[in-house]
Structure formats: structure tokens, C-alpha cells
């Protein structure tokens, strides 16, 4: 997967978890929680969807890597590349 494809895959998951939000103005460097009101249960949804859709397991101590779109793509890119 390219970096853009990885970003799109994450965006698709967020779109499902936050269906009321307009994701077109997403700022990749701002906290996802601030932009879309995502709480801890939403981040667990992101983790669960990554496991379901891409068999990627994010260990609990690495959850902080999912705070912004940029950090998420950076963290997940190697996982997607090998997926």
C-alpha cells in the first residue's frame, strides 16, 4: 500500500466511526480527538477495525501513536506495507 492508500484506509474507518463529521477539512497534524470529538471508545473502534479489516494488531502501549492522521499513517505504513 502507498502512503496515500494507507491514509485513505484510515479515513474510511474514521468515516464509519464518526458518520456525522465532514472529513474533507481534516488537518493531518491536529489531534483527531479535537477535530472530530473522538473519545477513548472511538479509538478502540479504530483499533478493532484495523484488526478486522487488515489483521493489524496495535498493542495497547502504542495507542498514543494514533493521535493524529500523520502519526497514524507513519505508524501504520510499515504494517500496511507488509499486509
Amino acid at each position: 500500500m502507498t502512503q496515500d492508500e494507507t491514509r485513505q484506509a484510515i479515513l474510511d474507518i474514521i468515516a464509519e466511526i464518526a458518520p456525522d463529521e465532514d472529513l474533507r477539512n481534516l488537518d493531518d497534524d491536529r489531534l483527531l480527538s479535537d477535530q472530530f470529538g473522538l473519545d477513548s471508545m472511538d479509538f478502540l473502534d479504530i483499533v478493532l477495525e484495523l484488526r478486522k479489516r487488515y489483521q493489524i494488531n496495535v498493542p495497547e502501549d502504542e495507542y498514543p501513536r494514533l493521535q493524529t492522521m500523520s502519526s497514524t499513517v507513519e505508524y501504520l505504513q510499515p504494517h500496511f506495507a507488509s499486509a
Partner: protein
Amino acid sequence: MAGDTIVMTGVGLTSPIGDDLATYRKNLLAGVSGVTWIEPRYMDRVPAGVCNFEATRYQKRKEVRRGTRAGSISIYCAREAFADAGLEMATLDRSRVGVFVGTTEHGNVETECEIANIKEFDYDTRYWTHHHNPRTVSNSPAGEVCLNMGIHGPHLCVGSACAAGNAGVIYGMQQLILGDVDVAICGGVSESIHTFGVFAGFRAQTALAMHEDPTKACRPFDQDRTGIVVSEGGCLYVLERRRDAEARGAKIYAEVAGYALNTDATDFVLPNAERQAECMTLAIQRAGMTPDDIDLISTHATATREGDIRECEAIRRVFGDEPKPLINNTKSFIGHAMGAAGALELAGNLPTFVDDLVHPTINLDHIDPACELPGIVSGEPCEAKGARCILNSSFGMLGINAALVVKRP
């Protein structure tokens, strides 16, 4: 009853034949059935009552996704009832509002969905959702209402099988009488059509209705009945003390004059006419009335042979061999809305106090001789000029009986 008089000032409902009281009443008077075919998971088609209310009228899509169907039904009914009562949260003490939602069961839908989900992953429980516990705790539907409306008073679900609609109203009025709340949002809901287990369970009991025409599947008191039609639904009322309601000039639908809850303690499933009769009698006595004061009996009859016959026997025990009141049944239109049944069936009859009509029981083509009561209104509505009092009965598994007596305001 001693102390405060409790009145109904708002009605919010969703049913297979209408998502507001006016539409629901119109279809009851017109004889319109709301039963259709559905296909539960793992099963062939079955007749069922389906609701089509607009959940996103009061919830964000994210709330719908995170919550439960029972929660969505409860929120819709609570918000509709609250608006109908002319109340505004901004002018109320939020800690003095309570939410009491009767439920037959809760959590089966969510559990079945998750088991189907992890089946896709070879039953690896790491794929089980973290939403499972908040969705399935037994206060969940009432708690969702409080989250949605910003209510800080007490909330709970009143688990009471198919007596839950009445039991929810009773709990709400008791909270008002105790002085613990000033506004009670209460009644019952059911999302049971989304769990195959409820259908498969009734089928295993040989109590699930079947008919080539789903609109004719629910046939209380009829010789050719085949059992229960499971339905979705919800009905929540706003209850207040009469003096509070009158002080703010609220419209009053009815006074809840009497109530009773009791228990058979004879069987898990089979009803007990003697205890049912005691329940009805107690509700009438608490209303300060005698059976002669009742103008209409809104029956529970679910179209099972045992259930229908024993309820008719209970009615004869209370009202004599030739009962004087008119008698009708709402399940014949909408099926058995389980936890919502008692509340929805009462709501369909409340407009009698305004339009002086009684809606009929439909699908009653050949009456079971054991159910032949003179007052049964069949096929067409009838006039009931000046009708003052309605007895509304609900009975559930494990022998729970609940009766309400409401009177013209």
C-alpha cells in the same frame, strides 16, 4: 389512592401502524394491520410488526451506531412525549426528571450480533466489541434517554416480561407519589424482533403465529389463532402530579387512577386467571371504583389458546358471567410489542376520552366459545359516548401481572 393524583400529559410512541398518537389512532379506527414478513437471522420468514420511525430525528448517526435499537426507540418516544407535554428542559430542574423504561428483555440483540460477528473470525474473542457491556447492561435504554436529553434524575429499566409497559408506568407514578421526581418519563419499549432467539423460542414452545397473510396472523380470541406475532414498538408517557400539570396549564390525556402489580407463583409460562383477576380487582379498588365503573377493558390477549382463555376467565371472575364493559384488543393490529405492549395498547385507547369511539379487535372471524364475552368489539369501531374509565391489563412470563385504571381527565 392516598396523596397526589397523577396525570398523563404527554405521549410519545412508535408502532407498526404509526409513529405518533394521531396516526396510530387513525389506523386503529380504520382496521389497518401493521404486521408484515421479516426474516430473522438463521430463520425462514415469520410475521412480525416492524417500526419505521426516523431515529436520526433525535440522535446523531454516531449515537445510533454506538447505542442500541432499544435505546433509539426509547429516545424517540421520550423526546416525542416530552415535546407533546409542552415541557422544556431549560425550565426544569434536570435532577427532578426520571426515566423508567419497561423492558421484556434486553441484550439479546447485541449478544446475537456479536456472536455472528466473531463467527466471521472463527470465534476469536479478540474481535468482540468493547461496546458490548455498555450496550447490554440492563439500564441501557433508559440511560441512553438520559444521555440524549441531559436528564440527571433517576433512571432504570423495569424488567417485567410482557407486563413491562404497564409496570414502567406504575414505577413512574410511584416515584411521583414518593416525591422523588417532578416529571416521570415512563412506559415500555421492545426491540425483540431483532433477536432470532425470541422467535425461535416461541416456535419451540409451539406459540409462534403463522398465516399465509401476515396481516391476519395475529388473531386473539379466534378459534383459528396460531400464536404470537412478535413486534417492535415503544410508548413512553410524561406523568406529572395533577397540581403541577394544572399549574402550568398542561393538556391532560387521562388520570392514572389505579394500578396493581402481583405475581402468580404457579408457572414459568402458563398464566393464572385467579391471580390476574386479583390484579385487576386491586387496580379498580385503588382507583376507588367498582367493576361497574369500568367502561372499556383493553385486553392483553396474545392469541395463544391458554393465554386468551385464562384472561377471559379472569375477566369473568371480576366482572361476572356477562361483563358489562366493552372489550378490545390492540395486538390484533400490531402484534405483541412485548415490553411496549401495555403502554402502546393503553395509548391506542386514550383517544376514546376525546372521540367517544372504541377501536375494534380485528381478525376475529370465528370466536373461540371459551372467549365469548358480550362486550368484545369486533371488526368495526363502536361508539362509547362519555366513556370514563379504562382498565388496561398486561401479563408476562414468570407470572407477572400489571393492571392500570385510567379515567377521563
